[in-house]
């Protein structure tokens, strides 16, 4: 069988000269690639972060409730979540991939990201719960509220500021770590960053993806600051 010679099409070199010469920032590239590269990356990044924060919060909240009831649990929980927190993310991602049941996918990334949120969220929630003065708690019990009602109606509302503060730190931490996740799972804003570095150090893509990650982080931080203000109406009144 005769195999025909390879045909090499003219790939057009259709790129804008700005892109070809890798000049500072090529807006045309951003426009052309928004829908196919940048926006999906942003969307994935938000998804990765949101899932990690939700799951991390559920777990950490439950742990904090446990430790609030039994002081002895605080130390082991702090130590284990602390160990997870200290492992460099690049290493944790690779260690997780080493397990046969974990693949190069979002699940593995999420396990790592959730691990990083636990210490912060646990400590902040616990601090918040603990910050409720003992006499307030006693007064509530004295008024006839059940333990659970004390928790939901007194302790948690007073702990909210600390909890939201913890969410704030955890969120920006996860957004930062999610960029590194592209090392094992080609998602999120880290993916265009790695590709741009590898592809002749393509500046526009670096600025676009890096800039979007920064904007995303600042936006999330800002929203949570607002949330923090909302849950502390008494502080607002103090400021007024």
């Amino acid at each position: 069988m005769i195999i025909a010679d390879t045909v090499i099409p003219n790939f057009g070199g259709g790129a804008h000269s700005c892109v070809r010469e890798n000049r500072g920032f090529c807006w045309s590239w951003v426009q052309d690639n928004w829908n196919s590269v940048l926006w999906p990356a942003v969307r994935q990044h938000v998804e990765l972060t949101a899932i990690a924060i939700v799951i991390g919060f559920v777990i950490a909240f439950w742990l904090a409730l446990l430790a609030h009831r039994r002081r002895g649990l605080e130390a082991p929980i702090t130590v284990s979540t602390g160990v997870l927190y200290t492992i460099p993310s690049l290493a944790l991602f690779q260690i997780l991939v080493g397990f046969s049941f974990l693949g190069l996918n979002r699940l593995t990334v999420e396990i790592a990201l959730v691990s990083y949120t636990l210490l912060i969220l646990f400590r902040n929630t616990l601090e918040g719960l603990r910050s409720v003065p003992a006499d307030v708690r006693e007064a509530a019990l004295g008024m006839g509220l059940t333990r659970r009602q004390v928790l939901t109606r007194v302790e948690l509302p007073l702990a909210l500021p600390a909890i939201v503060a913890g969410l704030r730190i955890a969120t920006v931490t996860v957004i930062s770590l999610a960029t590194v996740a592209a090392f094992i799972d080609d998602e999120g804003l880290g993916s265009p960053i790695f590709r741009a570095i590898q592809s002749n150090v393509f500046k526009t893509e670096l600025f676009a993806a890096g800039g979007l990650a920064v904007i995303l982080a600042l936006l999330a931080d800002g929203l949570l600051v607002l949330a923090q203000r909302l849950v502390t109406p008494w502080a607002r009144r103090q400021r007024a």
Partner: protein
Amino acid sequence: MKPVLNGFPWIGHHLSLVFDKLGVHLLIAGIALAVAIAIALPIGVWLGHVHRGSFAAINISNVGRALPSLAVIAIAIGIVGLGRNTLILALVVLAAPVVLTNAYVAVDTVDRDVVDAARGMGLRDRDVLWRVELPLALPLLFAGIRTAAVYVVATVPLGALTGTDGGLGDIIVNQASYRLEGVVGAAICVAALAIVIDALFAGVQRISTPRGLRGQIDFAAVQTAAAGNPQEEGTPP
């Protein structure tokens, strides 16, 4: 599980490699920290001394903490190109804010009565700063440097992902050459390094506190206040 446990012995078998990488790691971190302090400390101290710019000074660390490290490195590469200096530049950008904010708060919140008394005694403005405010501000000031130091040390490895030296990060990204044992070993070293640096600066904090105040200052509370909110530690990426 086995490769993970073998991380420790791996370190033992590759001491010279580890020390090489450690040296580069500390060099990069050290330069970045020094530059960040050189820039941010004077500004923060001055603003705190004249009690101005509180909104910016307090909030800049929040902005700084929110910045995703890899993104900042990427932008730095876009501006300056690749190389070790680019990594250092990015680390300075990431570390300076918390140093500034802590310096500001440290000087700004020195007991006004003490400052007034000093002025009342006839001390010049410059002396008030150097002989009264700064010594009293040292614990909180060093708390900020401590947070920044741990953060920088933990972020240096990202250099290996971005085309330059990453210190111990060189090993972590190179599973092909060093296998998972090496990755784990190097990761343990980074974590240990961060803990050691943290303890070191905690010691500096303690030593720098004027003897008269040592008993009165709750260092843990100072450190967490430095981080800006209820609880925080420094090691992320």
